[in-house]
């Protein structure tokens, strides 16, 4: 193994030989035993890793778990999920839908409802032309008149 490749692997897998992939570990050990140059590279990398490991770290507070679980019981969070829980329970009682299917199904139903409303309102009398309305009214009066005359 040449020193360039060795250096690359050192950066990638570190100085702990157990972390090296099995496929190259044995070649690496043999090369290391026979080369003072590679041993020097290994020592230099070890020094670098010790500096990295010396990075500052602060342990979390002892009550972190308690803090998180307490916050999850806050009323705003409970209320925000209650409707969803209610619906999921409702559906879970009788039949089961996978969650995405349920979501897609309900979205489609709402969309169909909205489209229905839009079509319904747009084709109502509000969209009729004034001339058309007048003609319809005359037709109606004519019919009503005839039927009245007919009765008499």
């Amino acid at each position, binding site marked *: 193994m040449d020193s360039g490749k060795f250096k690359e692997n050192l*950066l990638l897998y*570190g100085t702990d030989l157990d972390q090296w992939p099995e496929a190259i570990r044995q070649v690496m050990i043999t090369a290391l035993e026979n080369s003072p140059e590679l041993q020097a590279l290994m020592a230099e990398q070890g020094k670098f890793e010790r500096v*990295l490991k*010396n990075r500052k*770290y602060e342990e979390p507070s002892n009550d*972190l778990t308690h803090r998180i679980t307490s*916050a*999850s019981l806050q009323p705003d*969070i409970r209320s925000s*999920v209650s409707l969803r829980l209610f619906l999921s329970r409702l559906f879970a009682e009788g039949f089961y839908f996978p969650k995405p299917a349920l979501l897609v199904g309900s979205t489609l139903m709402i969309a169909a409802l909205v489209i229905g409303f839009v079509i319904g309102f747009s084709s109502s009398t509000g969209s009729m032309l004034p001339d058309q309305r007048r003609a319809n009214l005359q037709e109606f009066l004519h019919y009503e008149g005839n039927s009245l005359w007919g009765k008499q």
Partner: protein
Amino acid sequence: MDCSLRSLEDEALIRQIQEENYEAFVELVDRHSKRFYSISYRLLFSKSDAEDVVQQAFLKLWEKRLFWDQGKKAKFTTWFYRVVVNLCLDHNRKKKAMPLLEGAEPIDKQEGQEVLLDEKRKQILLEQFIQELPERQKLALNLCFYENLSNKEAAEIIGIKVKALQSLIMRAKTTLKGRLNHHID
């Protein structure tokens, strides 16, 4: 707490949580809060911010528990690492970067304290150099070197291929090595 929950795998706990088993949520938080705090601390370099982010992530999990899709068969920790990392990145984008060296205490030349101060100075420099790395390199280094995750898992969390992750790790370490050699030795 229900002792049987301790023997359950994370994904089984999530299913319990979806069935409103609050004890299962407590078990999951207890099991993983320290691990996710660790990566948050590495990315935010602030204890209180890291704790806030971990809390926020778990609350999101609780709040949106019904949206967890078991069909995708994602490992819980991989998925949750992604959630936490994204929250940290958002947090860092919102928060103005604080120059670490300006925040450091002035070096006191009293005898006997020099070694300690030198260590502290090295830590501050190291942190600064890590923070100055490009985001992905920093993430790769933190996940693989400090959190001891496998290359495969780290690549999955970042959303890249293993080869690309290895390249990020090598570039990060090479940069750090050069800068540390220049400033510390």
